């Protein structure tokens, strides 16, 4: 009967090879993005995004609005949590079954675009208008000069202060228009001491690209060179980690295990949300969430050191993007839908600042009176800060940067690596990832 075994083995190998060759056949191309939009026969588009239940509700509403204008369209909204979203997207793209309209993140944009998974939206320009969108914002969606994605909105890195805690411990905040990193350390120290350790002055950072970008840019450097190599000077990175380490050692920020615990937890469990830290970092549009969780008065303040430097560290970061699958069967129709999301006032009125402060100037102007106090504060913050040009989009292969950054911050905080060694190891690892892609 050994015959029987080998016969079956041959069959199962054939099945496996079949599956493998299907992988190779994934290069199929989609429809014509410049074609006339089908308004007669039924069109079904798949539209996917990540987020929480509040975003799911708003997005569903927008889909309904769109359907009332284009009755022959069916938009299937597929919502996922952040991690599940990327697993699912990678799998469907690999199997040539990607959704048509894809919510995209800055870290993954180049990884998908450079490998040909996304449609060059320039080819759909007669359906998808970008005239009202700020050009600095549009630039953040370009990879190799092509517009693969359009930002849904903008955010900016900022600091947040809990006014009630400051008052409670009788601490006066320095002038945050002109404050320095040294001022931040001093005021944080005062709060930690005044509260007897109950409230810690500053919530440490070092786990997101925003903080690193800002630090490097203030000193005239950048994380990546324009051609997508790691360009951060080791000495500056070492300085970044040295500062974080000094804060922790002096008790200005919490002890390392608590810092890391809060960094790993969701926003609601951070020190700012539970009123156990007086000053922290955030993306400006998160103010509403922090305020809701904290229940106390929170205020956005400028990044320290900005007034002292020639090049501002601050920049507009696209909060997320809209993009279209390059293999979509209905790229023109998908472009019409994205145009609706970006440029129609009705959609803007529903979405508000859920996906960032809109980059569309007209919509942004019309939105102001409809916003809550904190959302308005976030929008105002964008106008109040001085920004430099946006950093280069995360290069293909560097999508894991936040995990790499976080691990190195942990090693510095627990003193398993010196800031200098961490800086060198970080650069080497990130560059290896980019080279391998």
């Amino acid at each position: 009967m050994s015959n029987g075994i080998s016969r079956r083995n041959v069959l199962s190998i054939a099945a496996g090879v079949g599956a493998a060759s299907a992988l190779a056949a994934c290069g199929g191309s989609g429809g014509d993005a410049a074609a006339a939009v089908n308004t007669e026969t039924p069109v079904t588009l798949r539209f996917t995004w990540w987020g929480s239940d509040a975003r799911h509700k708003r997005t569903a509403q927008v889909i309904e609005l769109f359907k009332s204008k284009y009755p022959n369209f069916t938009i299937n909204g597929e919502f996922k949590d952040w991690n599940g979203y990327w697993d699912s997207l990678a799998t469907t793209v690999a199997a040539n079954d990607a959704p048509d309209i894809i919510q995209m993140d800055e870290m993954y944009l180049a990884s998908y675009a450079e490998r040909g998974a996304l449609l060059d939206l320039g080819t759909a320009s007669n359906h998808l208008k970008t005239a009202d969108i700020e050009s600095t914002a549009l630039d953040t969606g370009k990879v190799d000069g092509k517009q693969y994605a359009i930002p849904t909105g903008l955010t900016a890195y900022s600091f947040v202060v809990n006014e009630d805690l400051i008052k409670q411990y009788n601490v006066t905040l320095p002038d945050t228009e002109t404050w320095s990193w040294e001022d931040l350390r001093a005021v944080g120290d005062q709060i930690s001491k005044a509260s007897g350790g109950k409230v810690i002055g500053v919530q440490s950072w070092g786990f997101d690209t925003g903080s690193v970008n800002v630090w490097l840019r203030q000193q005239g450097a950048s994380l990546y060179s324009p051609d997508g190599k790691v360009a951060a000077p080791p000495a500056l990175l070492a300085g970044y980690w040295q500062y974080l380490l000094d804060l922790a050692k002096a008790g200005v920020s919490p002890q390392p295990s608590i810092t890391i615990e809060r960094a790993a937890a969701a926003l609601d469990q951070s020190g700012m949300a539970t009123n156990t830290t007086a000053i922290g970092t955030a993306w400006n549009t998160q103010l509403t969430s922090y305020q809701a969780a904290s229940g106390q008065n929170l205020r956005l303040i400028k990044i320290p050191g900005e007034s002292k430097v020639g090049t501002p560290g601050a920049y507009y970061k696209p909060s997320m993007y809209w993009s279209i699958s390059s293999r979509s069967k209905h790229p023109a129709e998908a472009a019409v839908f994205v145009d609706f999301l970006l440029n129609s006032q009705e959609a803007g009125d529903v979405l508000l600042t859920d996906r960032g402060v809109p980059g569309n100037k007209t919509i942004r102007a019309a939105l102001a009176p409809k916003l809550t106090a904190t959302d308005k504060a976030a929008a105002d913050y964008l106008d109040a800060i001085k920004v430099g040009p946006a950093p280069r989009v995360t290069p293909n292969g560097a999508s894991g940067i936040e995990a790499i950054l976080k691990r190195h911050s942990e090693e510095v905080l627990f003193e398993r690596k010196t800031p200098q060694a961490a800086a060198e190891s970080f650069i080497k690892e990130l560059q290896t990832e980019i080279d391998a892609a």
Partner: protein
Amino acid sequence: MSALGELQRLGTSKGGPPRKRDNKAAFLFLLPWFAGLLLITAGPIVASLALSFTDYNLIQPPEFNGLDNINRMFSDERLHRSLGVTFIYVFVSVPLQLIAALGLAILLDRGLRGLAFYRSAFYLPSLLGSSVAIAVLWRQIFGAEGLLNQILGIFGIAGKGWISDPDTALSTLIVLNVWTFGAPMVIFLAGLRQIPVMYYEAASVDGASRWTQFRKITVPLLSPIIFFNLVLQIIHAFQSFTQAFVVSGGTGGPSDSTLFYTLYLYERGFSRFDMGYASALAWLLLIIIAGFTAINFWAAKRWVFYDD
């Protein structure tokens, strides 16, 4: 595969003549399984083996790269780290979990009031083991403001974030795994049901102590089930993913102290678009697991007793 020779004892135990082969009946009984193997299981397994020798970023077609992936394993420090973490996890948490499960199964087997209540109470955590809420719940025990620190505080001991300290993070995950001993406990309970009460009655009449009964009746008659739990829990522990993923926020942190093998493999495959290497890693894991399983089957000859 001498370890699997153990299975041959099926036909030859008790020194009797080998039973006659029954290929036709076996084929019919195994028909669903064969169909599943052929149509669903085998293809992806073979495909993953093939992908082990490619550079495959999930979006573009795979490119053959020979033994590159294997060569890369030798110098991959994070891989070595993840192997270390995984081995510690397997060899500490599996014995602890099985001892807890067996001990409570015997305690909760019979002759105690409120059995159903206790069984359910001890099983309940296993229902939560892989839910998204577990990260938050585990922080309620081992976090900075968690139960453990509150208890330590009573004795004036300063706590820390146990989950987020690289020295203790892995231990909290081991505790988490032991905490969910419900599944092997239920299997033990089901196994204990198969031991006829009369053996214990007879032993009691003979004046055997509880310990003697445990050693001479329970362990031998339960040995196929103990063996099953041991084999499967080792396989599962090597593949352990969800708990570490959820608790560490998907990173295996802090500073790679909970970087389980599958967590690293997942990171390579999905967040770094490195599926060729991830497939090679998966096959290395398969070889490791298969090795331990083979050792288990080989050792089973000495201590597992079948009635057939």
